[in-house]
């Protein structure tokens, strides 16, 4: 990886706290998926701006599972491998709604300050 890559991509540590969980919940709201696909989807959707490595992703997933916002299910893949699929729970859906609202408020407020309305 080149230095410039690091500059362009943001590590989750730099993200506002709690944002990673918001992102995970949002992606799982689309469809249940496993960890690797989740990180790929994140990269894709953010057009490579957000790259979350497994070092942050898996602890975050386990934490969300522990909180009861997502649940996990072991399925067998085509290649007969055990794959852990995560899906959003009812509580998770509620949490997503509230976190989204929070995010809107927060990002709105930050934009107000950082990007003052022109004219």
């Amino acid at each position, binding site marked *: 990886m080149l230095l410039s890559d690091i500059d362009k991509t943001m590590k989750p540590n730099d993200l506002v706290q709690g944002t990673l969980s918001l992102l995970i919940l949002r992606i799982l709201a689309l469809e249940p998926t*496993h*960890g*690797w*696909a989740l990180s*790929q989807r994140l990269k894709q959707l953010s057009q490579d701006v957000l790259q979350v*490595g*497994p*070092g942050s992703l*898996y*602890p*975050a*997933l*386990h*934490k969300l*599972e*522990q*909180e*009861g916002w997502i*649940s996990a299910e*072991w399925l067998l893949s085509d290649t007969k*491998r*055990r*794959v*852990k699929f995560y899906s959003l729970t009812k*509580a998770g859906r509620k949490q997503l709604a509230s976190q989204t609202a929070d995010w809107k408020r927060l990002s709105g407020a930050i934009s107000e300050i950082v990007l003052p309305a022109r004219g």
Partner: protein
Amino acid sequence: MRWFTKWRLRFQSLFDRSRVEGDLEDELRDYIDREIEREVGAGATPEEARRRALSSLGGTERLKEECRDARGVRWLEDTLSDVRFAVRTLRKAPVFTVTVIAALAFCIGVNTAIFSVVDTVLFRPLPFPDQDRLVAVTEGVPGFGFPVLPFSCPDYLFVAAHNQSFAATGTYRTQSYEISGAGLPRRLTGARLTASLFAVLGVSPAYGRAFTQEEDEHSKRVAVLTYGFAQGAFGGTGQALGRTIFLDRIPYTVVGIMPRSFSFPIAGSRFNDHPAGVFVPVSWSGEDRQQNVSNFDYSMVARLRSNVTIARAGADVHRLLQRVVENYPPKMRDALSHMPNFSLESQTLPFREEFTGKVERPLLLLLAAVGIVLLIGCADVANLMFSRMVGRQREFALRTALGAGRWRLVRQTLIEGVVLSVTGGALGFCLAFWTLPLLVRFAPDNLPRLSEIGLNWRMTAFVALVTLATPFAFCLGPLAHTFRSGLVNQLRGEGRTTTQGKHQRVMMSAAVITQFALAFLLLTTAGLLTRSLLKATQADPGFRPEHLISAQITLPITVYKAPAQIAGFFDRLLSGLSTLPGVRQSGAMSDLPMGSTSNVLISIEGQSGNTERADTVFCRGNALELLRVTLLRGRLLQPEDQIGKPHTVVISEALAKRVWPHGDPIGRHIRFGVDIANNGEPWLTVVGVVADVKARLNSDSPRSLLFLTWPEWVNQMNVVVRTSGDPLLLASAIRRQINRLDPSLAVGRIETVDQILEKSLSAERFRTRLLICFAIAALLLAMLGIAGLLAYNTAQRTHEFGVRLALGADRRALLLLVLTGCLRLSGTGIAVGLLVSIFATRALASLLYETSPHDLGTFIAVPSILAFVALAASMFPAWRAVHTDPMTALRAE
């Protein structure tokens, strides 16, 4: 549901560790495989792809650790390992551990036990629905010396009919019955109730039914049994229903059986205070309802209407009682109109105060005493933990230096405390569990609600609270000090050479001083109660109780209808008894002089308008001589003083002094009833004055007693026998003698008079014994406290002592140093205790018999004991100080 999922996962992580770990492994491997596939797809070699995938993970082990953290089980795992560590550490300090756990267990145990007794008796709601709406109502004639009395039948009926405050009213009186038809004939307390009483209490029979108002009014012979009685007499509730039992040889049909928990009247009530085994309708006669206005026998219970306060109900009853006299028979009304002192008063109290009044003070005293024991014990635990923590400061500093977080140390310390306190608490709970039945067994009979006493949730919460509060209170201080005083200093060892901080020393000394002061208070209390009890046991009852045995006999008037039959029975019995070997003298009296409660009003010749209350005792034969009452003037009653001859009476000194303070009572006349023209009672001539006889050994107000010859209609007598040897040996012979005359007669208790007197002190003896136990415990705990502190101080100063010795100090000087420390601490404690006790023991005055709350003997003995104990406790530390080896002490650095 979320918390459920959470804990399911948590438990899985904890207890199904291998599966969870395997899952984690699989999940990460899946990621790596996919990452490799992706890299290979993008053109990397398999080796390169694998390397990149692994490096993106940033170390699998660290990642796994973070995942475990995220699952929120690490603190649990850590806690478990902390607990294991704590147990290991504590096992290395067995003396400390055992002492702390024992002190905690003892304090928590006795507190739990006493608390549950006090809670049940004083605070727990009564086992009746809406029990706070129940009130006990009494009346009283303060002008005649009876401020509080149960109701008379006409007064009760009037209040029940006309009040506007009560949703329902009921009344009861206890009565001793001869019961037959259910096992061997025996005497049993029964209660006569209005049918409404069950409804007032809100309790109905568990089997069968209660009797009805109609059955009560028509004097139907129906009975409701307690569960215990039905079980005991018939072997089961099913067998009892419909059976016939005989009360005083009158048949009653059993119609109902109360629930197992029902016990009534509640023991220790002001009146009618014996729980009954059988309940029958009160069945008043017409005479009861109208004429018997001076038989105050019926305890009244009422249920307040929902919007009525106790005060309003009280005013209501009071207003009614002012009008009740209008309905009295004319003769009575006329009599009362001549008596300015007569007025009916009343009291309406929450029902529980019917029985808590007498026991409240002693019970709260016990509760305070165990509370003090708990405080002293906690101070011990605090000081022990404190000094242990201080001793471990170096260890903590070292661990911090090695990277242990502060929070981790705090937690470790707390967990050690929790291990101690939970163990202590659990053992204490066991102790309470085992001692509570003992406590109940040895409790005096008149303690209310004894059968209900058991471990309850309030108490469990109490134990849990004490248990958990202890480590938090006592562990954190020293640790905070460690952090404050700077770890580096600690490591350098300065924490060891300098004696501990001034603040700490003051705290620990203050704890020991408090312990001594509290122990002083408790010892004084126990000392005063013991002295009072001794005084009471040695008190002169006014007669000679030794070698006396008494048998209670009540002849059923359904069989013994004519006075001549009654007289014949007792005459034959007494002459039969006098032939028994070992019997020196025998006689009979209606009540033992200390037991009489038959209050009467008397009027005095030549003192018109003066009425006195007195207790009467009817005597048969040479009963007074038999008792060896002390004759002060005149003569005793003799067998020749028969009814029909001029009526004679012997009075007690107290009555003589009240009525004729200056004159000679011999030859004066008194009679029953109030002094009015139509009083038909004959005049009685005073022939003798005897010394006062006490009702209870520890009562100090002398009683007015009248001893009269026995009118033959009195069917209830105590046969008293003075024996030459052990009176108890004659018990069965007496019983045989009685049943020879009437085989089906149930004989009441046969007891020696000594036993009866002894029993009158059972409540005092119970609480005094408990207090002595607590005082001894307090003393031991205080001793432990000062010994611990001195030992700790000595250990802290080992180095200093070593230096002193090396510089040529005399070993005696070291001894003196330790002893002065001990004396300073205990002396201050004793002084504080003395001051506190001087004020506090005044509150005991009402529990003391002929003992001043500032009894000199006690106030000399207690400080001496404490000083002695303090010195004894300082022996070991002093020995250690004196035998300090200067070389070892210095090398220890």
